[in-house]
């Protein structure tokens, strides 16, 4: 009998938890009339996004997020593209590109740094991707050297919506915090031409990883260098 009562208690507790789970309104993404087809983004043979030279180094309106005032920035060398779906600004601080934007209701800041380096030039991209997990050791000191302690190491698979004819890109990922309690999620994409360091600071690692996963794309400047 006590066992039964305990079980019932647990079921009720978790039933209540289920009821208190955040449930937002469900809007049918198909609602309304048929929309004109989107232009499929071009990708190279390795899965890198082909960024036209005319779009590089500019902050442009993103038609995919037109209703929320979304903007997109493409890197000068075509290494990456980053979307700020609710709008935002970008500025250059030395070699560091800074993005400031609201992600939902959370003010978020991201940084991108290109590190040209040919250490991996003799390896193929697929080989680098396959052995990515072995690279935490060599790159850990970078995070620690910046004054952050590492909370977690977990790779991030970039989520190239709809364009995944090639294998999705996997990036090294660190969740970290500094002495002031600032929480930053760092990612590193190593390739034959160098490393792209992309860091994000907002609310918590879950939010930061979501932003990177959804809105960062690797460009063909990293995957098929000129």
């Amino acid at each position, binding site marked *: 009998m006590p*066992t039964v009562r*305990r*079980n019932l208690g*647990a*079921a009720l507790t*978790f*039933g209540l*938890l*289920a*009821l208190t*789970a*955040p*449930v*937002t309104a*469900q*809007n*049918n*993404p*198909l*609602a*309304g*009339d*048929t*929309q*004109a*087809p*989107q*232009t*499929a*983004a071009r990708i190279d043979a390795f899965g890198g996004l082909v960024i036209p030279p005319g779009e590089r180094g500019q902050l442009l309106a993103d038609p*995919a997020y037109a209703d929320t005032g979304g903007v997109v920035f493409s890197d000068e060398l075509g290494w990456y593209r980053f979307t700020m779906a609710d709008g935002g600004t970008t500025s250059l601080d030395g070699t560091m590109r800074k993005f400031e934007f609201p992600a939902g209701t959370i003010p978020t800041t991201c940084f991108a740094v290109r590190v040209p380096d040919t250490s991996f030039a003799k390896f193929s991209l697929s080989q680098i991707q396959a052995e990515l997990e072995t690279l935490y050791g060599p790159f850990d000191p970078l995070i620690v050297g910046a004054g952050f302690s590492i909370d977690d190491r977990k*790779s991030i*698979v970039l*989520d*190239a*919506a*709809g*364009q*995944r*004819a*090639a*294998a*999705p890109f*996997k990036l090294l990922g660190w969740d970290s915090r500094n002495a002031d309690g600032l929480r930053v999620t760092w990612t590193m994409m190593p390739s034959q031409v160098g490393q792209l360091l992309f860091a994000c600071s907002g609310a918590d690692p*879950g939010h930061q990883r979501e932003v990177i996963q959804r809105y960062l794309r690797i460009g063909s400047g990293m995957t098929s260098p000129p």
Partner: protein
Amino acid sequence: MDGFDLDRRKVLQGSLGALGVLAGGSLAAPAQAADTMVPLNAMSLKNYHQVMAKVLARTDRIAVPSFRFGLVMRNGMGASGGSGASSVDLKADMVGVDAAMMRQLAHLAFSDFIERLRATGRTVLGWNEISGSEGYQKLEPTPDPFVKKPFADSRTVAVVSPEYLPLLTIGPEAPLSDRSPFNLKNARALNAMSAALKCLVMIPSLVLDFAALAGSGHRVYGGAANVGIQPGLFLVPLFTHFNFFHAKIALAGEGGRLILEDRVAVGQAGQLVQTGSYNNRAEIEEWNSYVRSNAWWTEPNMAAPDRPTSAYDYSSYQYRVDPGMLQAAVVDAARATHGLYMGVINANRPA
């Protein structure tokens, strides 16, 4: 002496049976369960069986009238040894999830699917066009939530669609269907929709289980029996699939499928807790202590314990879900599977 030898053999068998039961119900992951699990980030098309993907190249227009999201809510396994002399049984329930939460998860997964589908550059039909078609009017929705315990299967699965979509199944999707294989109404209605709107019709299905069970089966000669449970969400093979149809005429058309063939580990979304155990371990331990000692020889007149006629252990578990973790895991699983589907769609474009 013959009688003594026979008795020792019986004692030995009893002990083995008891040991088997003691191993049973442990939380240790059985080796065979771990071996067949593919990590989510390593999932590829190699883990899918593809049928008639070339149907995807028939047209650029795509209608998605439904999306199915399922969770295994209950699972169980039994094992026995020595022709039933020892038996173990395990039941596990997923708790903390209700239909509204499942529909919300279905909505998030469906939204991801549509976002990706639009990004392929294909024309994704709006709901006005889909719901206005004659084929749509002919569809017979399955009651939502649809709860099914397939025949000869210990799993109980609950399936829902987002609240704004009908839940649709056709006969060949058995066992997760409420239709007979001879009931062709929905298949014909989908064909009619495809023919009238000159489009492909797609219905993805994403089903997750919360724990992998493994057991020693039912043995006649071996005395031991064990079952094991390894908690953690995984995509369920066969139930997770992606169906697409195309028809030039309403009466008949062609279809293709991508069917998951391997279990794909998604991660944890809660905690496994043992909530009940009904067993005679104490009785068996008492008997084992007695036969391991020499009391049966040195104290022939003592009141010896009765030899147990069987060894049994019936355990129940709950996988107590954290809603936030479940949502993250489902979205991760949806993204990974949809990404693969889009790869196939991209690879089969109309000329």
